[in-house]
């Protein structure tokens, strides 16, 4: 089973990296009004089915992959 976790800075959380990227894109002439920079984690894992894989990845997010104070997560589970 494969899964992808998208970790984003939560709305309302200052994201200086995103601001710097947005400013640079505007400098290059792109009409970007907002940029936010997060993190992507690709996982391969053993799981009986998609539901149990998702459960497992949710636990991974809570325990390590994200800090819920400042980050939100989106989990995508891909069937083999």
């Amino acid at each position, binding site marked *: 089973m494969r899964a992808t976790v998208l970790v984003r800075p939560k709305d309302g*959380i*200052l994201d*200086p*990296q995103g601001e*710097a990227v947005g400013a640079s894109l505007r400098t290059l002439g792109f009409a970007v009004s907002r940029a936010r920079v997060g*993190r992507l984690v690709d996982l391969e894992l053993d799981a009986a089915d998609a539901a149990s894989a998702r459960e497992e990845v949710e636990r991974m997010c809570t325990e*390590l*992959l994200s*800090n819920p*104070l*400042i980050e939100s997560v989106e989990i995508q589970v891909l069937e083999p």
Partner: protein
Amino acid sequence: MSGDAPLVAVVRFPGSNDDGDAVLALSMLGADARLVWHRDRELPDRTGGVVLPGGFSFGDYLRCGAIARFAPIMEAVRAFAAEGGPVLGICNGFQILCEAALLPGVLRPNRQLEFVCRDVTVLVESTSTVFTASCAPGDPLVIPIKHGEGSWFADRETVAELEAAGRVVLRYEDDVNGAVERIAGVANEAGTVLGLMPHPEHAVDPLLGPVGGIPILRGFVEAARTASIVVA
């Protein structure tokens, strides 16, 4: 005061780089400071205080401190803190304590996205911790900072609770990194666990610069002296 120097364990993680200075500074201030490897499962007998030093444990991968908090020694540190043993987290150590939920909040990239490395003035906001018991409220301490991810953050309710409970221990005089309410250091409820971004271990010798770290480290060593009898 007993003649024996209290034993202070300075935990060395892969990527720690202020562990040596911590040992040196604490030794100067009368502690028997010893390095402890992060894979150890127990603190030395009669440990009276624990330091999580500055550095870049585990390469700051994922988030600063996020991986170090699973180090085998951390269970012992957690138990030691729960019994009231004094624990001092400096810079990366502060990040580890936050990730381990031993302290509230989280350290985020500096707002200016620059690594800051200079002496700053922090004001003592709370004297109800073992680290600041000898200070007066408002005392200015000049201590260096050197971090890229030292912008402390917590939500508004948490900050209000901490302020009311005297758990905001140190505040930058000027905004240096975008930290909420210019907070430089916070403590646990009992005032026995302190995390701070400034480096008191670099500010103990007048030959090398300011000495604002002395009161904090001295308070810690005194607390370790008591704890080595009570806790250990």
